[in-house]
C-alpha cells in the first residue's frame, strides 16, 4: 500500500466516523457561525484546534478542566463565599480539577496542544461569574453539569479502552461535584429537563437512547463549545473537526 492510498483510506475512515455523528455536511456552515469575538481574536491568543480523534478529545477535556480549575481558584480567592462548608467544597473541587489537569497533561505528553498560560482569560467574563455567593455556586453547578454531559458525550467517541476508563473515573467525580454544590443550594442533585443547556429537541438522538431527569444525556463537543462560549471566559478561538 502506498502512502497516498493509506492516507486516503484514513481520510475515508475518519469521514465515516464524522458522518456517523452527522457532522460532515454542516461542518463548514458551523465554522462560519462561531461567535465573532472568538474569530476576531487571532493576533493575541492561540487558536485551539481539536481533531476528531482520542487526542483531540483528551485536549478538549483538558480545556474544560483548565476552565473549571481557574474558576475555582478565582472563586475561593474572591472572598465572596464566606460559609466554611461552602468554601471547603469550592477549595476541594478546585484541587480535584487541578488534579485532572495534571493527569490529562501527563497522559497527552507531547500531544498536548496548549499550555495553561496559552489560555487568554477574559477578565470581564470571569468577574461576572464571581459577582456574589449565589452566582459563584450557580456557575459551579453549570460548569459541573456541563462537564458531566461533555465527558459522557466523549464516551462514545473515544476508541482507547484506557482512555474511556479514565474518562469514566473522572466523570463520576464531576457528577459528585455537581450534586454536592446543588445540595448546598438546596436544589435536587439531578438536572431537571428545563435546567439543561441543550433541550430534548436539540439532543443528538443517536447517542441519547434515554432522556429525562433520571439520566445525564450526552452532549456533542460542538454543543459543549457553544455552552462554554456563552460563559465568555476565554479569548482563544476554538476550531477543529471535533467541535465543528
Amino acid at each position: 500500500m502506498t502512502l497516498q492510498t493509506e492516507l486516503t483510506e484514513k481520510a475515508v475512515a475518519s469521514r465515516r466516523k464524522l458522518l456517523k455523528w452527522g457532522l460532515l455536511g454542516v461542518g463548514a456552515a458551523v465554522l462560519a457561525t462561531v461567535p465573532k469575538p472568538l474569530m476576531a481574536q487571532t493576533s493575541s491568543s492561540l487558536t485551539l484546534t481539536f481533531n476528531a480523534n482520542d487526542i483531540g478529545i483528551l485536549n478538549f477535556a483538558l480545556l474544560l478542566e483548565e476552565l473549571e480549575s481557574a474558576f475555582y481558584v478565582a472563586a475561593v480567592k474572591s472572598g465572596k463565599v464566606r460559609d466554611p462548608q461552602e468554601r471547603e467544597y469550592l477549595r476541594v473541587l478546585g484541587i480535584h480539577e487541578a488534579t485532572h489537569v495534571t493527569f490529562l497533561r501527563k497522559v497527552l505528553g507531547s500531544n498536548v496542544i496548549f499550555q495553561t498560560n496559552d489560555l487568554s482569560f477574559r477578565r470581564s467574563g470571569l468577574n461576572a461569574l464571581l459577582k456574589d455567593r449565589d452566582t459563584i455556586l450557580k456557575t459551579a453547578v453549570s460548569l459541573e453539569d456541563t462537564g458531566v454531559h461533555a465527558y459522557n458525550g466523549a464516551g462514545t467517541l473515544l476508541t482507547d479502552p484506557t482512555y474511556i476508563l479514565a474518562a469514566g473515573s473522572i466523570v463520576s467525580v464531576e457528577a459528585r461535584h455537581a450534586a454536592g454544590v446543588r445540595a448546598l443550594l438546596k436544589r435536587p442533585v439531578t438536572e431537571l429537563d428545563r435546567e439543561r443547556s441543550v433541550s430534548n429537541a436539540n439532543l443528538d438522538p443517536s447517542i441519547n437512547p434515554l432522556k429525562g431527569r433520571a439520566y445525564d444525556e450526552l452532549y456533542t463537543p460542538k454543543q459543549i463549545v457553544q455552552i462554554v462560549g456563552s460563559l465568555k471566559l476565554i479569548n482563544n478561538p476554538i476550531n477543529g473537526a471535533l467541535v465543528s
Partner: protein
Amino acid sequence: MAIFSNFAVNQATNPMQSHFQFSSTKSLEQVSTRTLSLIASAAFFLLFLVLFSFISLFTTPITPAYAQTATLTPQQVVEYALTLEKLEDDFYRRAVRATQNGGLKNAPKLAKDVIANYGRDEAQHVVDLSAVLTSLGGNPAAITIPANPNYTAIKGRNPFANIKDFLLALQYVEDLGVSAYKGQVQNLQASGNDTILAGALEIHTIEARHAAGIRYLRQELLDADIRPWIRRANEVVYNENKKGFPIDFADAAFDGFSTRDEVLALVGPILNPTSTQRSGERSSPSALEGSITQEDCPAGTTLELVSGGYICKP
C-alpha cells in the same frame, strides 16, 4: 482488604441476631442456625480473600490497554445492570414504606424527599433498561431478585430501622452502583454498541449524583465525617483503590470501578438463599423467605447462579 473484613465483622457481631436470640426461646435449632450463619459469614470472607488475591493477580497492567477483566456482551451487561437496578428499586420501595409507617417515619423531610426522588429515578431505570433488554432480544421478566432480599447483610442489621443506619447502607449501595456501571465501560466500548454504552453512561453519573447526595445528607443531618466525594477507601464496600492502572484511583479526584464478579460477590449475601432474613421489615410473608428457586422463574426459563447472583435464563 480491611473493608471486606469490616463487612464480615459486621455480620458476625450482628446486633439483630443477638436480639433475635434473646427475644425468642433458645432452642437448639436456633443456636445451630446462628452458628451456621456465622460459619457462612466466615466462609464468604474466605471466598473474598481467595477471589481478590486472584483478581489482584490479573489486574496487573495488560499493555497497551488496561483491561477491566471479564468480557461481557451488551446483553449480559444489561441483564446484570437490570439485576442491580431491580435490587435498588426494591430497596427504595421498602424505604418509602418505612418513611410512612416504619423506622424512618420520623426521618427529616430532607431525607424523605431524597428517598422519594432517588427511588423514582431507580424505578425509571428499571423500566427503561427492561425495554433496552427486550430490544436486544432478552427477557426482562427473567431477571429476578428474591421476594425478600436479605438487606441485613449490608450492615449486619435491619437498614430500615433508623435514618442513621439507612443512609449509610444507601451510601454503600449507591457508591457500589457507580463503580459497577464504570466497570462495564470497556466491555461496551469493545462491543461497538454505542447505544448501550451511551445508555450506561447516562445512568452511571446519575448513580454518582445519588451517592453524592446521600453523602451530603449524612454530613448535613448526622454530622458524619463524610463528603460527596470518596476520600478514603473504607467509605465504600468495593475495592476502590485498584493498583496497576495509570489512573490513581486512591486520589479522591478519580472514582474506582468494580467488575461484575466483584459486585455479585458483594451482593451475594443479599441474594443469598441460605441466609434467613432476620429483619423486622419483611414486607409480605413469602414461601421464599429470602431465597429464590426455580419456581420463581417464568415458564420457559431456567434458574442460573452467576457468581453469587441469580438470573432466570431463557
